[in-house]
């Protein structure tokens, strides 16, 4: 039960972080025509195709006590993300970010540019257009992406294991608990956890499918 609570907490916070960053990046991507756009898109999609362990390795290299960013964080603020649930949040946010960016970017691109121009001639600022036109018209795609991101964050295993470890009660999420249960031969527990994850994942996919269908 503890691992279920932790999983939900980590996934929720990771989704929240990825949501804000993802929408902003998606909007900028959808509205830019810079030559480096393809490169940025590829870079943001990378967490989806890299093995999670590779991603976890990058995180350790950057954020470990001896890592570039990690060392600075530890020396100046005494913060270390290694083997903490906050580290798990970071890992989960990173793997779920591409889902939000992809889905929101497509939704923003679907918004008629003439409608945004109409808002411009009526005096709306660029920020105003974002909040009053683009987001309300693209919300289905954004929400569908966010749900997928949440599902992905819940199931995150590899990168989380690398940075946060598998400490029962501290960083042990559901997917870790399944692994432990199977290793320990506790088939009943493993079966129960697998069912929980599957049901949640299935519900989220159905819901996001319905949302996307209504959009088109």
């Amino acid at each position: 039960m503890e691992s279920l609570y932790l999983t939900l907490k980590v996934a929720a916070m990771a989704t929240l972080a990825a949501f804000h960053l993802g929408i902003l990046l998606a909007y900028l991507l959808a509205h830019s025509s810079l030559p480096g756009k393809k490169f940025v898109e590829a870079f943001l999609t990378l967490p989806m195709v890299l093995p999670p362990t590779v991603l976890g390795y990058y995180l350790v290299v950057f954020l470990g006590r001896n890592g570039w960013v990690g060392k600075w964080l530890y020396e100046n603020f005494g913060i270390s993300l290694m083997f903490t649930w906050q580290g798990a949040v970071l890992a989960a946010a990173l793997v779920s970010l591409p889902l939000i960016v992809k889905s929101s970017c497509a939704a923003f691109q679907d918004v008629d540019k003439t409608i945004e121009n109409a808002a411009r001639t009526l005096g709306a600022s660029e920020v105003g257009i974002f909040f009053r036109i683009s987001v309300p018209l693209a919300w289905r795609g954004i929400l569908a992406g966010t749900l997928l991101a949440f599902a992905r964050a819940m199931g995150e295993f590899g990168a989380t294991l690398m940075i946060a470890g598998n400490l029962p009660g501290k960083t042990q999420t559901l997917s870790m608990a399944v692994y432990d249960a199977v290793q320990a031969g506790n088939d009943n527990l493993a079966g129960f956890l697998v069912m929980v994850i599957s049901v949640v994942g299935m519900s989220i996919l159905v819901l996001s499918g319905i949302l996307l269908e209504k959009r088109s």
Partner: protein
Amino acid sequence: MSIQVRLQKTLRSKKRSFEMNIDFQSDDSFTVLFGPSGTGKSMTLQMIAGLQKPDQGFIAVGDRILFDSSSGINQRPQQRSIGYVFQDFALFPHLSVEKNVAFGLRKKWNPFLHTRDRLRIAKVLVMLEIESVAAARPAELSGGQQQRVALARALVTQPDLLLLDEPFSSLDRPLQEKLRRQLDDIHACFHIPVVMVTHDTCDVRALGKTVVTYHNGRISTIQKKQKLNHKTCETRKLQFYTAHA
């Protein structure tokens, strides 16, 4: 109020290159840009509104300079105080008719409207006969109603200039005639100078005072016309229909 427009723009793509070189001035309250499609009429409107940037040129409405490439002036579309009725109306599909009309009056970060603005919206809705559909979404309206919402939304901010991009092209003929007359009345009421793009000779006959004819990115003629009455156009069209019946 006079409008001065001098524009140069070259568009190049793999398939074709298009060069636009436009220079006209109009002191009349109703200017029609006339010509076949693809000659740069709509692009002229977009440049006047600041949605596209000319390579070189000068745009002034009255004594306000909106764009001047020689002195580097290029006002943002938000600053230009220009009402724009787009060809497909570009209404905000997620907002009610009333909120569409109110859009340009809402101030930053303030969800509430001034009482004066509320009155103004109510007045415009009545004037354009859309007060009965004020709560409806654009998708629920007929083409004619959508057009009037677009017009109301542009007029309510009291712009210095109103741009109309083929406002009647997506409507059927009998409705066009009625709306043309209505537009004429509204125009007389609001005293806002209009620049309208069209490829329909009926529009030119019914509304144009100064008619700028486009040909291939250039202006072929600028005519000042005495306004003809609607009958001429209607009779002509009647003849057209009976001849083809």
